[in-house]
């Protein structure tokens, strides 16, 4: 995905399982971020919304466009950012 080099970027945030229930049940939400915002910036913004959002873990596993990604990953317009609670498959 090519980054736009000016203005804010919109990313889609996905929440699952216990995280989803914490904020009231919506799986997808669109968030506008400043240019060159990182995953950590996004997490801080979400927590700052208050209510259930403030209970999201300070450091969570995150996937950007369906791959696990670090907190310093820079986000681009249209990225799909998923907060991944501790997994329990099998």
């Amino acid at each position, binding site marked *: 995905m090519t980054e736009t080099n000016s203005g804010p970027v919109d990313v889609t945030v*996905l929440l*699952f*399982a*216990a995280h989803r229930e914490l904020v009231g049940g919506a799986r997808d939400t669109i968030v506008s971020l400043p240019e060159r915002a990182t995953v950590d910036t996004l997490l801080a913004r979400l927590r700052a919304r208050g209510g259930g959002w403030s209970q999201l873990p300070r450091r*969570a*596993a995150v*996937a*950007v*466009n*369906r*791959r*696990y*990604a*670090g907190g310093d*990953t820079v986000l681009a317009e249209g990225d799909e950012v*998923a907060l*991944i*609670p*501790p*997994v*329990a*498959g*099998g």
Partner: protein
Amino acid sequence: MSWSDVTKDPIDPGAVLARVGRPGDGAVAFFAGVVRDENEGRPVSGMEYEGYDEMARDELAGIVAEAAGRAGTQRIAAVHRLGRLAVGEVSVAIAVSAPHRAEAFAAARYIIEEIKKRLPVWKREHYLDREAEWLEGSLPVERGNRGA
């Protein structure tokens, strides 16, 4: 060729087994995870699996490809179920065939261990005697950045 899927459809272990095997393979290893009727002494009525479907599908295919590389076999089939499962239903099934047994066992084991570490799937246990709850899981370790 290896095969993997993440699905809401019931898993048929025989059909998963039937996906592996070829005349040069002398060993077939298989593993299935099944919903139990109790957990730490509490009676369980069923399990609800939620997944980040699209990513889980990619991640499972990646795990299978890693196992195939290590074991030197492309005869691997792995499937994970999502949705509401009753006690006794199969939640995950893995079949591997290989020339010899050590590789077949190792690949099956690798896949189930990695599923438990990395597959973006969560489970909510339903009890006979109290409210359902999400089970604690493992925090996936980041495996390189998005471009990796």
